[in-house]
């Protein structure tokens, strides 16, 4: 244990800074995101796009699956990392309309680590792998798009056809999907 200050020690107001250049410091979120982004280890099916290279907190992830139901498509996700990262997860939305049991028409994505199972030790990379996995193994157990989930459970061939129709652009179950072929 130490004595942190002697009783005589007076602190002074506005004494000159011993450090040159009194600039705003980087936030803990910025320190962490710099690390996360520099060490992004993307699967070969994924690329990122940073509209402003100075802003590492806002970017897009593009996934082009090379196997599974969705192998012919190209899907774009937007990432917004908040000032409380990594205490809070980034906000992720799917910008491509997709016929998928775990993604709804508004682009909400049901992935546990984006909400209830997020932990500060997880990284942007964990989310990328989680999203990629959603395209390989769509999960009809926890649906956001209930109709798609039912089709997947009851008729995999029809599900496959519906996915392809949606990717090429057109109506599936009365909903119009924009074309998103690779």
């Amino acid at each position: 244990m130490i004595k942190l200050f002697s009783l005589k020690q007076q602190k002074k107001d506005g004494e000159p800074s011993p450090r040159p250049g009194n600039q705003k410091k980087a936030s803990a979120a910025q320190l962490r995101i710099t690390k996360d982004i520099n060490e992004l280890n993307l699967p070969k099916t994924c690329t990122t796009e940073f509209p402003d290279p100075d802003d590492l907190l806002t970017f897009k992830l593009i996934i082009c699956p090379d196997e599974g139901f969705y192998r012919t498509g190209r899907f774009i996700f937007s990432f917004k990392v908040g000032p409380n990262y990594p205490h809070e997860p980034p906000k992720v939305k799917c910008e491509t309309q997709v016929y998928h049991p775990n993604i709804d028409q508004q682009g909400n994505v049901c992935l546990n680590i984006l909400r209830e199972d997020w932990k500060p030790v997880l990284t942007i990379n964990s989310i990328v792998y989680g999203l990629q996995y959603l395209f390989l193994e769509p999960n009809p157990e926890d649906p956001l798009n209930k109709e798609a989930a039912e089709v997947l459970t009851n008729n995999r061939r029809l599900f496959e056809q519906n996915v392809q129709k949606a990717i090429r652009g057109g109506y599936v179950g009365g909903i119009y999907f924009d074309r998103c072929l690779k």
Partner: protein
Amino acid sequence: MSEFQESNQKRWSHLRKVLERPGPFSHPEFEPSSEILDFIMSSCKLLVIGAGGLGCELLKDLALLGFKNIHVIDMDTIDLSNLNRQFLFRHKDIGSSKAEIAASFINKKIPGCQVIPHFSKIQDFDENFYRQFHIIVCGLDSIVARRWINGMLVSMLNYDDGVLDQQSVIPMVDGGTEGFKGNARVILPGMSACVECTLDLYPPQVNYPLCTIANTPRLPEHCIEYVKLILWPQENPFNVPLDGDDTQHIAWIYEKSMERSLQFNIPGITYRLVQGVVKHIIPAVASTNAVIAGICATEVFKIATSCCVPMNNYMVFNDVDGIYTYTYEAEKKEDCLVCSQTPQILEIKDPNKMKLRQLLELLAESAAYQMKTPGLTTVIDGRNKTLYMATIKSIEERTRDNLNKSLVELGLRDGQDILVADVTSPTTLIIKLKYVIDDVEMK
């Protein structure tokens, strides 16, 4: 002895019993003396961050303990719903600054006490402001604010040849409450676990699985979250983002949540619950605030006087059912993003000539760093700037030109912090540039 002196002696007689004689719980190096009381009253300078539920209690406790030089920061104004527990405020104060009203109340009630209010954000002040304090006490409800002040205090540490200069340590005593639960902790920046070391300890916001909200709601909260997360962006009823303080917005959410709860036969939707879920309100309990503030104020007293060994270092409190407390030593994380590193200083001979490319070569080749693919960012005039990042194609393409610019051309100044991320280090390193020539022409 004059009458004044006599009453003063009486007023502080309890403190003098602790400070002027040793006791079984005294710190081993404690030297009892009457000077200690003088120190508390005349030299010791405290900063209280937050003048809300905890802040009101803290200010009262500290002022009654004899501390006279206290600053308080709070950016909020007083709301009707504060009055049941934030006892320094009255009905007529609604709309006024919490910091200002709290300060004037304490100054009026407690003779000799001089609380100086700051109606502002903690981010409005720089290290010159924070350096004037002996101890900082936080009664905050925001994790972002805690992380900010923690980062500030760590960045103010000085090191001599890698050895921490203890004079630069400003202890931080941090209290937090949520309903019937609370915690109090003592942080010695650079020496013990900091806020960032223990980020996992802060309860995450309650987030329900999206698919449950969308398809299999069971709780009234699920219905409210559905309206907030899915229906609001879909229908966009007022063509503006949802504002939890707008009664029209809350009324809309209430109505739609009610419809959904009827559809699924879920009882329990009330207007209050809707408000609570939308604004993430956890009801504040006055007695929890009082307990946690009391513990924090005691820790401040212990640190300021050295009369007792301070808490080591994290206490949890729960009085949902009986009273439970537990104190343990939260551990400093070896790879903490904020406090694990001593600042590295990199001497630059000629920042007008030295190109960013050469700086990268230095980081790769010097024995001290041996980096593989460092990514460099910095903060210039409060804005984040990416200097170079080879690993991300879209960033590399647009920062490539920076490689051939000199440090001065890039706007980097003497003393600039460069954030360096590389696979060779578990954290982002902060490297401070030190320009060793004195005729640098700055633009």
